[in-house]
């Protein structure tokens, strides 16, 4: 009886609700606090829907706001940028305008981070978009697919 109860307890603790973790600083942005915000759009797609794109994970965050709202996002992206193995960036007025980063593979998956602060180029478009993806698609394949 004790063994049975212990097994049940073990099963319960083994099973936990897990949010996809990339092991990057930007994970903090997807901890749930943007889900209820009226100035943000958060997208999470995993599994079957991404199969045509040869991706296993897609996360994005689009935030509308002021410079102050974007500071945190830029800070986290720049921190992660230090561990990128490939990158392409553009700066405007000392601020990160756009960034494309590729990180060391997680098992067989490529990992990409895209960032763009549209408000720096066009103040009327006061938004920042951040996209994180994992999958076996190469960058060229992704470019073709998402045209």
């Amino acid at each position, binding site marked *: 009886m004790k063994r049975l109860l212990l097994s049940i307890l073990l099963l319960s603790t083994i099973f936990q609700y897990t949010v996809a973790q990339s092991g990057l600083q930007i994970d903090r942005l997807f901890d749930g606090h943007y889900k209820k915000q009226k100035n943000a759009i958060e997208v999470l797609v995993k599994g079957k829907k991404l199969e045509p794109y040869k991706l296993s994970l897609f996360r994005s965050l689009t935030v509308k706001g002021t410079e102050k709202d974007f500071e945190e996002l830029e800070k986290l992206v720049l921190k992660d940028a230090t561990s990128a193995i490939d990158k392409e960036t553009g700066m405007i007025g000392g601020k990160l305008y756009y960034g494309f980063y590729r990180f060391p593979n997680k098992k067989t998956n490529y990992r990409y981070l895209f960032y763009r602060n549209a408000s720096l180029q066009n103040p009327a478009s006061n938004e920042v978009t951040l*996209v994180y993806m994992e999958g076996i698609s190469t960058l060229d394949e992704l470019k073709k697919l998402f045209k």
Partner: protein
Amino acid sequence: MKKDFKHRFLKGKAKTEWIELTRRYFEGETNEEEEKQLRIFLNSPLRKKSEFEELRAVMSFLSEGKSWYAKKEVASRSLYRKAWTAAAIVLLCLCSGATGYLVHQQRNICVAYIYGEKCTDAHTVMQRMQSALKGTQLPEEEATVENQLNEIFRTLDEPVATINDSH
């Protein structure tokens, strides 16, 4: 040897002592040990007098009842254990099933939180996915200008050809 001991033990008590013990039994004043002595006495050949018949009948009846209840208690305890085991097995199966279902759910997620509202409509979510990706891409005109600039600088970096004029 055990038989001898019993015989000596029973013989050691006088008849009056047994009668007194019987009286105390009916008054509810005897302890377990004394009741045990009485049972042994009643089942022994030393019990000859009919004045102990009533005691014998009562003790037999009580003993029967006691053993019946003991059996019932054992059966009830056994049933209790079986019920608990069955409940635990059912719970384990439910947990395993729930775990499997939730793991499957975790593998396939398609959700968007649009300005605070949760949306699980696949078409809408995929549209938002496309929008987000477009949002990270440079506008075409910027891409064109950037490419042109890249071309210019690349040309400047190339070595200048020297022409030897023999004239």
